[in-house]
Every structure is written in C-alpha cells, then in structure tokens.
C-alpha cells in the first residue's frame, strides 16, 4: 500500500501481530498473578485487532474496522467481568499465585 509514496507491505503488519500474539500467549502460560494473566489476554486481543484492521485496509472493506470496534467492546466487557470475579475472590483470600485457586481438582 502506498502512503505518501512509500511502500508498506501488509505482511509486515501481520508478522508483527503474530509476534505480539505469541508474546501474549507466553505471558498467559508463564505468569502467576491472575491480574497479569488477564493483562496478557488483553495483549492477545490487541494483536488480533491489528490483524483485522490490516486486512480491512488490504481488501478495501470497512467490515474489518467495524469488527475491530466490536472486538474492543467485547474485550472491555470481558475485562470488567473477569476483574469482578477476581475482586470477589480477593475479598475472601489474598491470592498471589493462580495455582492456589485449584479447588476444582478432580
């Protein structure tokens, strides 16, 4: 695509998005604080948004951007509910390690 005469390739955006997504996945798998895990999930969602907008520009179709708006909204709602659940847990116990929340064993 051309932007002021220079040539940007869609693939660069997509690869960046892939890297961000993978980094987010690493964070979810490795970190222990439940809040940080939620943040990493948000990171993954952002990466997906980038992909959507890239393709929207590539194909000249606005649907990608509209979908991105929906994605942002849903991410917000999901963050709110997730945090509310965590707050509920934090009311009764001080959780530092998500491995402590393992009562659903078996």
């Amino acid at each position, binding site marked *: *695509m051309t932007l002021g005469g*220079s040539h940007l*390739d*869609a*693939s*660069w*955006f*997509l*690869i*960046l998005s892939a*890297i*961000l997504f*993978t*980094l987010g*996945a*690493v*964070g979810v*798998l*490795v*970190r222990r*604080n439940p*809040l*940080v895990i939620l*943040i*990493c999930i*948000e*990171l993954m969602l*952002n990466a997906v*948004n*980038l992909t959507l*907008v890239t393709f*929207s*520009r*590539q*194909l*000249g179709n*606005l*649907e990608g*951007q*509209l979908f*991105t*708006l*929906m994605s*942002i*909204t*849903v991410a*917000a*709602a999901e*963050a*709110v*509910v997730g*945090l*509310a659940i*965590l*707050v*509920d847990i934090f*009311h009764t116990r*001080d959780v*530092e390690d998500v*491995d402590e929340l393992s009562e659903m064993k078996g």
Partner: protein
Amino acid sequence: MAIAVFIIAALMAIAGAVGVISFREPIRSVLSLVVVMIALGILFLLLSAQFVFVAQIIVYAGAVMVLFLFVIALFGPAREFARANLRFQSWLSAVFVFALLVLIWMMLAGVQYRQPDKTDLSTFGTVQSIAVGLFTTYLYPFELTSLLLLVAAIGAIYLSRKKVDDK
C-alpha cells in the same frame, strides 16, 4: 517516511509486550500494556483507521487500562514471588509457543500479497463511513453489543459486592 513510522511503532509495541510479560510488578505490566496500545494506535492511523485509533485510545487505553490499574492498586500484590513451578509447565509452554509462532509464520509466508484494492482514502475509515456501516448494515450487532455491555455491568456489580456475613 511511513516505513520509519512503522518501524518505530513496531519496536515500541514489541518492547511493550516483552515488558508486559517480564516485569515482576503488576503495575509495570499494566503500564507496558498502555505503551503497546498507543503503538498499535499509531499503526491503525497508518492503516487509515482513524475512528478505530480514537476508540482504541479513549476506550481501551483510557478506560479499560485505568480499570486494571485501580484493581491492582486496591487488591494486587506489589510484586510476584517465584515459587515452585508446575511440572513440565515451562518446558511445554516453550515448545507450544515456539510451534505456534513457526506455524503462523509458515501460514503467512506463502501468501502473495497483491496491491490493495483501490479505495477512496478520503472516505475510508472516517467517522462518517463507520457510522453509516454501524447504523445501517450492522445495526443488529451494534445493539447486541450494547446489551452485552449492560449485562457485563450488572454482572460486575453483582459479583464484586461485599457479601454480608450470615454467621
């Protein structure tokens, strides 16, 4: 020049992402995520998505991240301590994540990108065009999304209330 902007924004994003997953203190993770979001906003501008850029900054970086900050400030610990790992967790994670990256690269590698379709850039991604799409063709998802927000709000209020002790 666009390439330069892209490279700077991309490096900012990657640095922020690495920061999110590495910092021991949750506050610093949140702030790193804000950096990532701003970088992504710049990238959206590069892709002629003005309205999405604004929404990203105002809603995502502005509201959602502030919410996270409040929760961490009120409830979160100051830092995370290293404890005994789950068995195999780190090894398997590395394997899977690496595999994921490779696979995605492979999927993207063989794609022949053509020139982007000719679009009228003066109207692409503007508030007006987004509004037209959102309120006509995609009215239904729009309304559903607002319902979803309502439900989320009610749920959050209910879930996070302090329980009255019955004893």
